[in-house]
Every structure is written in structure tokens, then in C-alpha cells.
């Protein structure tokens, strides 16, 4: 209580200093929330890709297959040593023109031939309704982020690329790619996909063999990254084959650099705030020299003076941190609410980020206060008492 009173004796200065920390923590919370969300998204991807090899058309990049590949490849691929099962998948954008630029994955349509059932370990839990089966033509399951956008509820009808589908299930929010995915049967997807292709391209394609990627599950004990080499050799050079290492190389490593960058920017903002604490506390010590003299005369030890000023500085850091976290939370919440309406959730304010930001600002306050407090503690009582 005394500490708070001392901090707010110069109200304007206290608020300005606290606000400096608030801005730093706000930057850390908001950018950190983006980093945490992307991290989760990528972790989801790492988990998904951990046990499989993805075969796409040679012209695609990093396994995100969009160009068609023939599902006939499946037979050859499944014959390769080390492949336990193969499954045809077809992915394409939910809408041709993506309206919002999102930091996550864009809304997608996904379909498989259900050959992965029982082999796929990466399964998304349903919030409502039931999962899709092979014979569910004309039906879909919808990811959590797309519920509002499509107006989906179990039993209702949604329109995808001009065609109506019945919703049989809605997925639980995962904060990863499946949140912005609509799942349908392969024949439905093949028909829809064909309609999206230019007529000249579509004409030469066999609708029933249409796929964007073949997912190969490695046999137990087979390293999927080793399997990549075998598959490449067996299938020939016109395919792009990616394993877990490829995903990490193309997505996880760049994300780490991005994370370092945004955390560095936020930390610089906080350190600038820390310098303003040092400035404020130095002025406070100088203004309160006489008070320090009085305290020493009536028995305050150096340690007591040191603790007093470090506590005041820590309070500035802590209040700035809490205020920054509160503001950051409001911004993240407000943006998330509006973002979910359109596309993928952009922010994820995790407990470790919230706790870490406030703890960092507290520690920053303590360290910023050490030098001025040490200076105060060393003042000579007689000289301090005669200070006007």
C-alpha cells in the first residue's frame, strides 16, 4: 500500500511510465498471440505429416497439391515396399477468390476415398452430428471456423460452389487447419473440382481418377523420410514427394525465424519501456533524497531502502504488464470474434504467453529499479538529510 502510494505520488509521471510498459507488453501479447497460433497450426501440421508421405503432381510446391494428379498412381504407390496403405485425397479452395487475407490456412474443401480410415491417427473430434462415411454423397462435415460463414448446423443445407449439401456433422475447434475445412466424399469433390477447372483442361481429365494428392502411410518401423526416397525412385521424376522433414523444412523453420523476429520487436518495445522506468526511478531517488536521509536517520538499512525502491519499480513493471495484458486480451478477443466470422482465427493468447508477458514486465521492473535503488541505498544519511 505504501509502495503504491509512493509510486503514484507523481501521478502523471507514474502513469506515463506504466503506459510505456503497457505498450511493450501489448505488443508482446498481440504479436505473441499470432506466433502462438501459427505455432499451433504448424504443430498440427507436423503431427499430421509425421507418419505419412504425400505424393503430388511435380508442378506443385511443398506438398500443398492443387494441380490434379491421377488416382491411378495409388496402385503403383501401394505396391512400394514400406507403404502400409495409400489414400487418394482431393483438396481445393472453398471459394475461388479468397476474400480475406488470413495468416492461417484458407478455407478448403477436402475429400478422401476413406481408405485412410483406421490408419490415419490424426483425427478431428466432432462437436455435433456424425462423421462422414463413404456413402454420404451430397453430405458434408464442417470445420469450426466455417460454421458461421456457411450458416451450417447439423441437418441444415449449405451451398458450396453453387451446389447444395446436407450438413451431417460439425467438428470441434482444433485451432489448426481442419477448422477451415469442409469434408465431402471423393465423388462429390471430383465433380465440384472438375467444374472449377478451365474447360480445355477439364476435357482431358478422367473425373473418377481426379485427385490432388496421394497420401501414403508408412509401415510400422519405416521412417517416412526414408520412404520418400524409395517412392521417388519407384514412381519416377514427375511427382513431388514430401515427408515429415520436407514439411518441417518448408514450414516449421521459416515460422521459427518469423517468431524470433516478432518476439524481438516486442522485446525491444519492452526494453525501451524498461529504460523509462530507470529514468523515472532515477528522478524519484533524486527528488526523494531528503526522504531517504530521514528513513536512514530513523533506522532504515541499505537493504530496506534498496527493497523500497526496487518494490516501487517492480510495481510499475507489474501494473504496466497487467494493463498491457488486459488491453492485449481485449484486442485479441475483439479481433478473434470478427475474424472467426470470415476465416481462420488469427490469435491464440495462451496461458504461458499471458503469464510470461506479465512475469517479464515484473522482472524488467525489478532490474530497471536496481541501479537507482542501489544509488539511493548508498546515500550518506547526513548529506541526504541536508539535501534541499
Amino acid at each position, binding site marked *: 500500500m505504501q509502495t503504491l502510494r509512493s509510486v503514484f505520488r507523481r501521478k502523471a509521471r507514474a502513469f506515463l511510465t506504466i503506459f510505456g510498459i503497457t505498450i511493450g507488453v501489448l505488443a508482446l501479447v498481440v504479436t505473441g498471440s499470432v506466433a502462438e497460433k501459427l505455432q499451433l497450426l504448424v504443430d498440427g501440421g507436423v503431427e499430421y505429416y509425421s507418419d505419412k508421405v504425400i505424393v503430388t503432381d511435380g508442378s506443385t510446391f511443398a506438398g500443398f497439391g492443387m494441380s490434379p494428379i491421377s488416382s491411378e498412381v495409388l496402385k503403383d504407390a501401394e505396391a512400394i515396399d514400406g507403404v502400409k496403405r495409400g489414400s487418394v485425397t482431393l483438396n481445393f479452395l472453398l471459394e475461388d477468390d479468397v476474400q480475406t487475407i488470413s495468416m492461417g490456412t484458407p478455407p478448403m474443401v477436402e475429400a478422401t476415398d476413406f481408405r485412410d480410415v483406421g490408419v490415419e491417427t490424426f483425427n478431428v473430434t466432432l462437436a455435433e452430428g456424425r462423421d462422414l462415411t463413404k456413402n454420404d454423397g451430397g453430405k458434408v462435415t464442417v470445420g469450426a471456423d466455417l460454421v458461421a460463414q456457411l450458416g451450417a448446423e447439423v441437418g441444415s443445407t449449405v451451398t458450396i460452389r453453387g451446389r447444395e449439401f446436407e450438413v451431417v456433422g460439425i467438428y470441434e475447434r482444433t485451432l489448426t487447419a481442419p477448422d477451415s475445412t469442409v469434408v465431402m466424399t471423393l465423388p462429390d469433390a471430383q465433380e465440384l473440382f472438375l467444374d472449377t477447372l478451365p474447360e480445355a483442361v477439364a476435357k482431358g481429365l478422367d473425373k473418377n481418377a481426379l485427385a490432388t494428392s496421394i497420401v501414403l502411410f508408412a509401415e510400422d518401423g519405416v521412417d517416412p523420410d526414408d520412404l520418400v526416397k524409395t517412392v521417388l525412385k519407384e514412381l519416377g521424376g514427375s511427382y513431388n514427394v514430401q515427408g515429415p522433414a520436407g514439411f518441417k523444412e518448408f514450414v516449421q523453420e521459416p515460422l521459427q525465424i518469423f517468431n524470433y523476429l516478432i518476439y524481438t520487436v516486442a522485446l525491444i518495445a519492452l526494453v525501451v519501456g524498461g529504460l523509462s522506468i530507470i529514468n523515472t526511478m532515477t528522478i524519484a531517488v533524486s527528488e526523494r533524497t531528503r526522504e531517504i536521509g530521514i528513513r536512514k536517520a*530513523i*533506522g532504515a538499512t541499505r537493504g530496506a531502502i534498496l527493497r523500497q525502491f526496487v518494490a516501487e519499480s517492480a510495481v510499475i513493471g507489474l501494473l504496466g504488464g497487467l494493463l498491457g495484458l488486459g488491453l492485449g486480451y481485449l484486442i485479441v478477443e475483439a479481433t478473434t470474434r470478427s475474424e472467426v466470422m470470415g476465416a481462420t482465427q488469427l490469435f491464440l493468447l495462451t496461458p504461458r504467453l499471458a503469464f510470461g508477458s506479465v512475469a517479464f514486465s515484473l522482472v524488467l521492473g525489478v532490474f530497471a529499479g536496481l541501479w537507482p535503488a542501489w544509488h539511493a541505498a548508498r546515500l550518506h544519511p547526513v548529506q541526504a538529510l541536508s539535501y534541499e
Partner: protein
Amino acid sequence: MSLALQLENVTRHYRLSADNYVNALRGIDLSVEAGDMVAIMGQSGSGKSTLMHIAGGLDKPDSGAVWLEESRIDKLSDRRLTALRSRRIGFVFQGFNLLPQMTALENTALAGKYGGMSRRAATRRAGELLALLGLAERSRHRPSELSGGEQQRVAIARALMNEPCLLMADEPTGNLDSATSGEIMTELVRLNREHGMTLLLVTHDPGIAALCRRRVTMQDGLIVETRSKVGS
């Protein structure tokens, strides 16, 4: 009678610039018996405040020895000197020196806290002392809401918090009108007479010095005269 304070050949100089020194104390010998009330008189610059700072453990001499009861204090480390100051010496200053952001009660209790009391014990004792000095009703007021006399009584209460063996007062009535000065001096004399508190008073005022049993006059860093009251 036992000695409360003893100074032996104490010197102290201050450096004003590279080759300019002031010899504030030039060999002071002074003994104060327990329960005594001594006035230190002298003009500005005579060294009386420096004497009080060294006797009270706020400053250290260049040479000589300072004894507080049986303890030699001039060689103590800062930490031990601070501990001794907080428990055995009480200070009352001319400018009251209360902390403006704290109430009378908090100002008083602070000395107890620094002396090692718990917050609760310090607050209770501070309340008792303020009541003893007639400030029970004013204990929740801040210094800016108190008169000069009330502020000085708070300062006296604060000085008494840790039951010191020696109370030092530097011009305790210097900022007060004559009526209030009289009240404060009555309190100090009462503390000395009724509670046996040893008092060392620095003052310009011969009227105040006349209330003390002994008067020590300083000039240019030396004690030039010591007078005891007749009959004491």
C-alpha cells in the same frame, strides 16, 4: 552514574574543494551521564550539528572514539551502526522531517518497523505514544494537516518508538512560535524528569538551554565552555 555517551578527542573535517578543508570538530571530549539533559550551544558553523551527527551514529569521526553506553560505535560497520541507531538513538529535527505521504501513525510506526517490530506491534505502540503526546485524535492525519507543534510531537513519538537510551534533538523548537516551543520543551523535560530519558539538545536559544542541567558551548569545532546548573 553510568555514562550514556562519551566522546574522546573526536575530530572531523569536511572537504569543500580539492584544497579547501573545514575542520568541523577539532578534538572534542564530552561525557553525558545516563538521565542527563545537555544543551549544545554555539553559533552557526561552530560544529554542534556535526557533533550531534557523530554522537548519534549518523556520521563517523576522522579520529577519536565514540562510546554509546558500553559500545564503541565509531568503528562499527554501516549495517551495525544503522541497527544501533534504530534501536538505541532517537532523533528529533528542526524541520520535523516527517514523510509527507504518511499519516502521523504511519510516520511513527515506521521507526518501529525499521527497529524490527512487527507491523501490528509497531502500529499499537505508535498509537500509544501519540496518545501519550496528546495526538490520539490526530493520528490519521498527514503532516500537511498538522500544526508545527503537532508535527514535532509526532517526530518525538517516532524518536521514542524503539525505547532509545539517548534522544537527540537538533533545534527542536527552531521552526515553532514561542508558545508551541514551550509545549514541546515541556514534553522533552517531562521525558527526562519522569522517564529518565537522556537528552542531547542542540539549540541557539539560551532560554531553552536554561532548562537543561548542563550547557556546553562550542566555537570553531571546540568546546569552549561547560556549565552545570546550580543544584543539579
